[in-house]
């Protein structure tokens, strides 16, 4: 290597170039440092959060749902253990072969094609539930456990309803419909409306996972918290007894409430269904239930609306008294009909009631007395008082499809039918027909309002809800007159339900009002006639039989509201049922 005679100038150039490169390198280092500062100091929180999300997997464990009890702590809805065969795809490549093997070994009767199709769609790490596992199946499986790497028996909780008579109040649970929902939730009635209250808090298992989602270790476990128990005002024995009193071949409903605090003690509807079939996924039974023309899912106690019939009469009576349109002692002569304009309005009693005062009009259910009263009444006063006494209202007590019903007013007719009000319609409304629509629960509440003197306790199903009163006070004299009349219906001869006192003298003494709610207009004179022969009339056009009664008649504690669809006259069908139930409630002190 020869010594170079490098000129001083060229050395200078090299040194200058070296300086440029050092500067460039320094700038580059500075940019890198700035970027690191931005990542690690300025945006630290953002990346920290991302890293925690990367590292942690949270698995939710379903909580145990709160139980539902009746007022005496009898279990109406609880949770029970359920065992299922579950396949985990990630545990074995041969998972479908194992499913086939399991299907042969334990007669699961799986549809293999469908199972394979579903399995393919399913996530690797969450198991796919194949079928329920019975105890015998579990024993058989455990003996052959070594054959199955990807199949496990997993315990989960299912809802358990010991008494199907409560299904129409408690409702049922539904399977998750969205992927974000991890477990079933209430979809009907109380299970739905009390979902948050009953549900509880899911437990969380935090675990560290690697990039493939595999758990490396569990970090912490937050235990799930059981949901709150719900205590209802219902009474198990009364509910079951009332259901047994509903004629099996008739649609109908019975509601029993407490006069004292508005507690709903029982609420039945026929036909009914068993919520357990939804929990047990008995698909055939569910299909039958949903396609049943008698609509067993429909609770007639609060979703069924009917013309109240004569049960409505205390309202026009009270309006008459309040507005001084009538003197309770003054008699009206009933000749069997009353005329307005060129039209005749008939009393159910063809031959007429003769001289009728207010008490007799209610006791014997004279229509002509109320027609004459209705001629002086403004329909809006009826609507307004009805509203104060619990009709034309929706009760917010957690039930699905609870209706509002209707007591007509001029404003309503204008708005919905775009017609003005006719006086003739007031006559029909005052005997509980026409546009009037009330549910059995509303009728029970109406009588509770009358018995309580206007200020009545709002009906309730949740025992923990404090009793709240609503409505406006009635004149106590007016109340007394109405009560006397209602007592006379059952207690005095010629009362429409006097038969009750004779046939079952040992039962608790009750008051009440019969009603016959017209489905179609048949001869007016035939209504509420015990000799009323209906065989000629098609079943579905027969009148609804209505009765609202209370017991004991001198110190009312219970109200029963009964409707039997197409049952005929109120006195013949609904009244004896109500009497039995009130007697049961009274004797058992529910």
């Amino acid at each position, binding site marked *: 290597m020869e010594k170079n005679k490098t000129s001083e100038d060229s050395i200078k150039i*090299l040194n200058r170039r070296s300086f440029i490169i050092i500067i460039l390198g320094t700038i580059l280092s500075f940019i*890198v440092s700035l970027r690191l500062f931005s990542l690690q100091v300025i945006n630290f929180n953002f990346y920290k959060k991302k890293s925690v999300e990367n590292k942690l997997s949270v698995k939710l464990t379903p909580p145990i749902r709160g139980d539902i009890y009746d007022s005496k702590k009898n279990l109406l809805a609880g949770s029970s253990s359920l065992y299922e065969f579950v396949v985990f795809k990630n545990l074995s490549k041969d998972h479908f072969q194992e499913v086939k093997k399991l299907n042969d070994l334990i007669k699961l009767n799986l549809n293999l094609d469908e199972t394979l199709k579903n399995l393919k769609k399913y996530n690797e790490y969450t198991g796919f539930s194949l079928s329920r596992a019975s105890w015998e199946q579990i024993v058989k499986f455990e003996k052959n456990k070594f054959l199955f790497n990807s199949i496990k028996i997993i315990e989960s909780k299912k809802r358990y309803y010991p008494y199907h008579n409560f299904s129409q109040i408690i409702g049922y649970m539904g399977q998750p419909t969205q992927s974000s929902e991890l477990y079933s939730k209430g979809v009907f009635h109380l299970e739905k409306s009390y979902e948050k209250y009953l549900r509880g808090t899911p437990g969380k298992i935090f675990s560290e996972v690697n990039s493939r989602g595999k758990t490396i270790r569990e970090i912490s476990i937050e235990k799930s918290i059981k949901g709150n128990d719900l205590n209802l005002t219902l009474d198990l024995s009364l509910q079951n007894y009332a259901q047994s009193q509903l004629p099996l071949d008739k649609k109908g409903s019975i509601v029993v409430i407490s006069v004292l605090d508005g507690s709903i003690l029982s609420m039945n509807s026929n036909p009914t269904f068993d919520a357990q079939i939804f929990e047990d996924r008995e698909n055939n039974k569910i299909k039958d239930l949903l396609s049943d023309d008698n609509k067993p899912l429909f609770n007639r106690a609060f979703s069924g609306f009917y013309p109240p019939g004569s049960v409505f009469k205390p309202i026009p009576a009270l309006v008459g008294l309040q507005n001084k349109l009538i003197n309770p002692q003054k008699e009206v002569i009933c000749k069997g009909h009353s005329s307005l304009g060129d039209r005749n309005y008939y009393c159910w009693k063809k031959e007429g009631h003769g001289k009728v005062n207010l008490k007799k009009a209610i006791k014997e259910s004279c229509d002509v007395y109320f027609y004459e009263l209705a001629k002086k009444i403004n329909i809006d006063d009826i609507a307004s008082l009805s509203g104060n006494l619990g009709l034309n209202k929706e009760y917010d007590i957690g039930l699905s499809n609870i209706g509002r019903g209707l007591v007509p007013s001029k404003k309503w007719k204008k708005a919905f039918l775009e017609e003005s009000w006719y006086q003739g319609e007031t006559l029909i409304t005052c005997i509980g027909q026409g546009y009037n629509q009330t549910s059995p629960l509303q009728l029970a509440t109406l009588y509770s309002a009358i018995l309580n003197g206007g200020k009545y306790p709002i009906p309730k199903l949740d025992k923990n809800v404090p009793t709240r009163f609503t409505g406006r006070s009635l004149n106590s004299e007016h109340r007394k007159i109405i009560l006397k009349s209602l007592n006379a219906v059952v207690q005095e001869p010629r009362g429409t339900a006097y038969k009750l006192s004779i046939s079952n003298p040992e039962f608790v003494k009750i008051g009440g009002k019969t009603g016959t709610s017209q489905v179609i207009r048949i001869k007016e004179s035939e209504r509420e006639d015990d000799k009323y022969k209906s065989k000629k009339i098609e079943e579905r056009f027969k009148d609804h039989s209505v009765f609202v009664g209370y017991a004991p008649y001198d110190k009312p504690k219970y109200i029963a509201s009964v409707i039997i669809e197409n049952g005929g006259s109120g006195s013949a069908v609904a009244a004896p049922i109500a009497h039995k139930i009130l007697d049961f409630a009274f004797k058992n002190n529910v």
Partner: protein
Amino acid sequence: MFKEFKSIFNLNWIYFFILLIIFWIGEINLYSAAGGSLDPWASNQLIRFLFFLPLFFLVIMLEPKFIFNFAEIFLILVLIGLITTLIFGYTGMGATRWIKIAGFNLQVSEFTKIALVIFMAKYFHKLNAEKTIGLFKSILPLVVSIIFFILVAIQPDLGTAVIILALGLVVIFYAGIKLIYPLLSLGVIISISPILWSLLKPYQQNRIQIFLNPDLDPLGKGYHIIQSKIAIGSGGLKGNGFLEGSQSSLDFLPEKETDFVFAIFSEQFGFTGSMLLISLFFIMFLIPVLKTYKLTQVFNKIILFVLSFKIFFEFLINISMTIGILPVVGVALPFMSYGGSSLLSNLIICALLINFMSINEKKRMFS
């Protein structure tokens, strides 16, 4: 061929000490990348280091004259090596980068960088140091650089190829080419970049696109960058602490022991640690560079400056990659990434630097 033994006492031990510190940080880092285990990376890398150490000192003791004389031979050797790689090479991860020599998988392209710099240093030395170098005199080194660039790029190993070309250009620039040419060629490159783009393999185009927008493919190619940024960002100012890097220990970060080893480091030791590491590499870069100002021989100056620059340059490229300011092209982090060829070639470079730093031109000229 070798210097006298006593010259070992005149070596720049400070530089060697910094090298040891960086290697040791790398060892600690590989240990934590394995989740607190020597196996499989830290122990292997240490064994390689100890195995290479005699060679390291051998290179230190080489006469600079020997290196000068054999410059062309080295270049021919790596040329043969590269061609052999292309024909007989061992294929891994879609690329043919390694050949088996005496039981070792050797990545010849790593050594190409050294041979090319030595060759060009000799070339410019021989030009007798003209005041400035014109275009004509630069053509040979440029063509050689481009040939090696192509040979490596078709393996394909774009990262190493780009480094080779960049080193060639840095030598030419440092040696004193008229400034007009680099500026001119920069303009040309920008104007023909669409053609260059079409020459890239689809996966290379893909990488650049994903670099520009990692969210295009968050679970595929963009995954590297996103995960690496999460790991680094979550380190914060002080870091999560030794062995506390959750992202790295939990396998969220692919290639964490090789190209993304900086993310492991930065997650554990944070911004503070990263700054310390940058400072160490910067000092390591400056020590030989400062020596060049005392030297007058072009060969010595180029060897010291460009090889020292090579280590710092790769360091910057690598961490720029992990923090998402450069596309992921596969450049190892010197002394910290797991891998034998990179370690060996960088040890040889450091040995050369230590060797050339001990040159006293007043006493021992090239004569």
